[in-house]
């Protein structure tokens, strides 16, 4: 892949061989063919998108109403769209990896080793940085301000900048499919392998800059979320009256603020090594590669709790709602959440027990790690006791919550095994570890995201998702997960290393086949989700719930229409108890109409957010290809845009009191006119978003 650079002054180190089509042309092989097809897919997809947008004249709407919007709800949805697109790619890569391992037993398999290495690197990086992170940031963005009765985030413009930096990183990941290649160093990117001496190509540079854009976006997002929760709660909403999802959002935001910097330091220092010849992590001249592992995991461990805490918040909402009952042990859930957040900074060494430090040091960190099991277990029991003496409804989100509690416990216990250093010496770097973390990430994080998706989808779009297809997807998820990942525990315990492109042990064959089958079942689950979305959109009139409250919800997010108006609440709600909306529904006016209406200021759209994203993307791309003029131009544009924003004065638009009143009254009339349904009819077409109270249900 070392052709002569084309126009080096303009394009840096780009050579024709950096295009997969050219490589495929020169040396046709299945592996190169797949790479070329993937690149073609990206290009065709992008072109098709442009054509569709042009054909239906959607550019204007898209730009005005979405891309430049500072509305936290739209930003939330765009985050989730990014997550969805990136997920599609990462899933295909996951299935390809399973195919490779099942086909490469004493045989070369379908992929070249280098291609396989790019797959696990992109799959891991995308799933963590561009699927999970945007997904949870998006959900928090959408739901949390509604739950605390706020009108928007604390810094709407910064919210947009954070979104577009993440978007820029995601696009950079996609570009790496078309020009050049991606890193082969895994999502952890350990030097010296990713250093200049061993990986002189553009791969690690793509990884560094994509991750950097994503992590700057996450830091800004974390600041925004934390500040919103601290400063924008509606009157009467004390911290201890917040929904649990807000608590987990707060703790996640704090983790983002303090745990992203170590990643930034690690990648920045690696970049200094690669670009300016520093010796931070090289093997020679006094470099210290162990410090990279140290820095990376100072980030990496808190990161897994950044991912899981919001999921815990979602489960808390879902279990309480669908058990028709208050959460058991609110206070201990809050304490457990905070304990997990703080403890997560004290255990990072368990990711490199095998580096050679003293036994006592390992033991201390092993014990600290196991301690996290206690607050986690408390949470699981709190959910169990929430079902206790409740009335459990087995809707799709609740099914995910139940499957989560049982499966996540197994994964947690495999985590405890890894926390015991002598056992970790055996399982580190094997598929046992891979099984552990997928066992946390899929039944923990992903089921949580799916539960939240089913639960809040009607909030965001005004209609419910199809229940039958949801159940089909659920069954596939559970079956697929067990089939795909339980075999990896066994293979790991048999000593099979992770990141292996070829297998020379025939005894591993049956398990690799089972895992492959599981991957296909999981793929079917994804297909079922897509069918479900399509069916639900088709039937959206029958399942419309504009009145707002399809699940007999508890938090304030249900105390407004679905979807909510731009400003969320005509008047900020006043809260005088822990369950203002739910108790209001039962004992008094759920959401009393305000005695008067006031004009409302909402943030005006700003083009600077997407422009900063594009400029940052250009900077990153220029840096990857050593096209310095491009990098500098992008950077100057970013700085210019920030300065320009500080000069802009007219940042808000005022909605008149009359307009607010008209919308609000229309909604209130609709609620009055809509027949209330009991929980028995919850999933039927009768459910139009008004819930009968228990008293009515009994009558």
């Amino acid at each position: 892949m070392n052709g002569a650079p084309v126009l080096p002054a303009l394009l840096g180190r780009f050579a024709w061989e950096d295009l997969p089509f050219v490589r495929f042309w020169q040396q046709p092989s299945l592996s190169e063919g797949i790479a070329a097809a993937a690149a073609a897919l990206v290009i065709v997809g992008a072109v098709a998108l442009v054509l569709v947008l042009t054909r239906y004249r959607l550019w204007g709407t898209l730009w005005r109403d979405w891309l430049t919007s500072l509305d936290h709800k739209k930003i939330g949805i765009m985050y989730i769209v990014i997550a969805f697109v990136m997920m599609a790619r990462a899933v295909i890569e996951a299935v390809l990896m399973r195919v490779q391992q099942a086909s490469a037993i004493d045989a070369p398999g379908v992929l070249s080793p280098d291609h396989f290495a790019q797959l696990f690197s992109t799959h891991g990086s995308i799933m963590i940085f561009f699927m999970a992170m945007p997904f949870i940031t998006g959900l928090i963005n959408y739901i949390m301000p509604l739950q605390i009765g706020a009108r928007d985030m604390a810094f709407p413009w910064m919210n947009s900048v954070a979104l577009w930096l993440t978007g820029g990183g995601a696009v950079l990941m996609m570009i790496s499919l078309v020009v050049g290649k991606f890193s082969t160093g895994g999502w952890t990117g350990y030097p010296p392998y990713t250093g200049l001496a061993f990986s002189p190509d553009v791969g690690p540079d793509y990884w560094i800059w994509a991750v950097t854009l994503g992590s700057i976006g996450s830091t800004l997002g974390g600041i925004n979320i934390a500040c919103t929760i601290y400063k924008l709660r509606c009157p009467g909403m004390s911290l201890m009256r917040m929904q649990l999802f807000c608590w987990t959002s707060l703790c996640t935001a704090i983790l983002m603020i303090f745990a992203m910097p170590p990643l930034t330091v690690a990648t920045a220092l690696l970049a200094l090594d690669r670009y300016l010849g520093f010796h931070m992590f090289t093997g020679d001249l006094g470099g210290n590669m162990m410090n990279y592992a140290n820095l990376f995991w100072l980030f990496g461990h808190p990161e897994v709790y950044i991912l899981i805490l919001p999921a815990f918040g979602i489960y808390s909402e879902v279990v309480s709602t669908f058990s028709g009952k208050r959460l058991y042990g609110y206070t201990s859930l809050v304490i457990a959440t905070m304990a997990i957040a703080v403890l997560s900074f004290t255990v990072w060494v368990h990711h490199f027990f095998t580096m050679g430090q003293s036994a006592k040091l390992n033991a201390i960190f092993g014990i600290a790690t196991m301690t996290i099991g206690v607050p986690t277990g408390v949470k699981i029991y709190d959910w169990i006791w929430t079902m206790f003496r409740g009335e459990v409804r087995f809707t799709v989100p609740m099914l995910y919550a139940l499957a989560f509690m049982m499966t996540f416990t197994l994964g947690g216990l495999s985590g405890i095994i890894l926390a015991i250093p002598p056992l970790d010496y055996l399982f580190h770097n094997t598929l046992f570890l891979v099984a552990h973390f997928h066992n946390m990430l899929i039944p923990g994080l992903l089921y949580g995201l799916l539960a939240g998706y089913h639960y809040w989808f009607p909030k965001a779009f005004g209609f419910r998702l199809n229940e039958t297809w949801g159940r089909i997807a659920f069954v596939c998820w559970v079956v697929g997960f067990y089939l795909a990942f339980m075999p990896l525990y066994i293979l790991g315990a048999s000593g099979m290393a992770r990141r292996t492109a070829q297998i020379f042990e025939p005894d591993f064959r049956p398990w690799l086949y089972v895992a492959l089958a599981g991957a296909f079942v999981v793929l079917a689950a994804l297909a079922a989700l897509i069918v479900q979305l399509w069916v639900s959109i088709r039937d959206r009139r029958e399942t419309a719930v504009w009145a707002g409250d399809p699940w007999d919800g508890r938090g304030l997010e249900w105390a407004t229409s679905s979807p909510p108006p731009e400003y969320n609440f005509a008047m900020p709600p006043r809260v005088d108890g822990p369950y203002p909306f739910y108790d209001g529904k039962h004992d008094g006016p759920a959401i009393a109409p305000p005695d008067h209406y006031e004009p409302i200021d909402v943030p005006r759209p700003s083009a600077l957010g997407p422009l900063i994203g594009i400029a940052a993307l250009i900077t990153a791309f220029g840096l990857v290809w050593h096209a310095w003029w491009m990098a500098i131009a992008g950077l100057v544009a970013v700085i210019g845009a920030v300065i320009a924003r500080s000069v802009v004065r007219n940042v808000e638009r005022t909605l008149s009191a009359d307009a607010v009143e008209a919308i609000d009254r229309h909604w209130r009339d609709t609620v009055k006119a809509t027949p209330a349904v009991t929980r028995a009819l919850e999933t039927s077409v009768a459910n139009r978003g008004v819930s009968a109270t228990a008293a009515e249900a009994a009558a």
Partner: protein
Amino acid sequence: MPLPLLLGGCAALSHGFLNAAGPVADNQRHLFALVAVVLAFIAAPVLLLVPLIGWHYRRANRHHAYRPKWTFSWGLEGLIWVPPLLLVVLLSVLLWRATVRDDPYRPLADGRGAVARPLVVQAIALDWKWLFVYPDARIAAVDQLAIPVGRPVRLDLTSATVMQSMLIPRLGGQIYAMPAMRTQLNLRADHAGIYRGANVQYNGNGFARQSFEVLALSPAEYAAWLARVRRGAQPLDAGAWAKLARRQVAPAPSFYVATPPGLFHRVMQDAR
């Protein structure tokens, strides 16, 4: 589960630490069993309570209490915090003892429990192969590690390339090998046999093929092995070293004599 699969699974596991062939892996196997029992007790309540409570309190079931405002009980609270905490304390004791006992740096006794001078082997990680230097015998082997059964072995590890990690599942342990640094792994084989060892830290295209065989030999066979190597092998001179340092997979084990004294330290120095 179909029978062939089950058998296949056992076949797979026989390559791992559950089929331990030395004291370290054996310790780890015992520890694993013990921990598994404790964890089974931790898992059981959750695995039972979730389906039982979920099902019993289902909405369709009219025969249960419904207390939507019940949110707290000190008794339950104690039950969910204290026993897990005690279990963690118990596990911590286990963990501490086992970690200190199984420190890869800790020298091992010989098969009969007597203190013995370990066989020192220096392992140099290369792309994509392992070079095992026997400093006393002044021989070296690529991708083959022969050790006498019953005698403790001390591996000194370093790397002439990127970070790698050595794992021999049936003997135990795992430790990183890093340029300019030296780590240690103490092992012993108690049964004669051929075991698989590998680098398990990804290091490039040849990674999947960077494994080696461990020959655990009786003392007589070991002596014969040494003699065989001495007889048939080429000297490890500059030319041979240059060939080894290339980023290539070794197609088959190869052997060297006349290894330069202090080779291992030179490799460490050169990396600096």
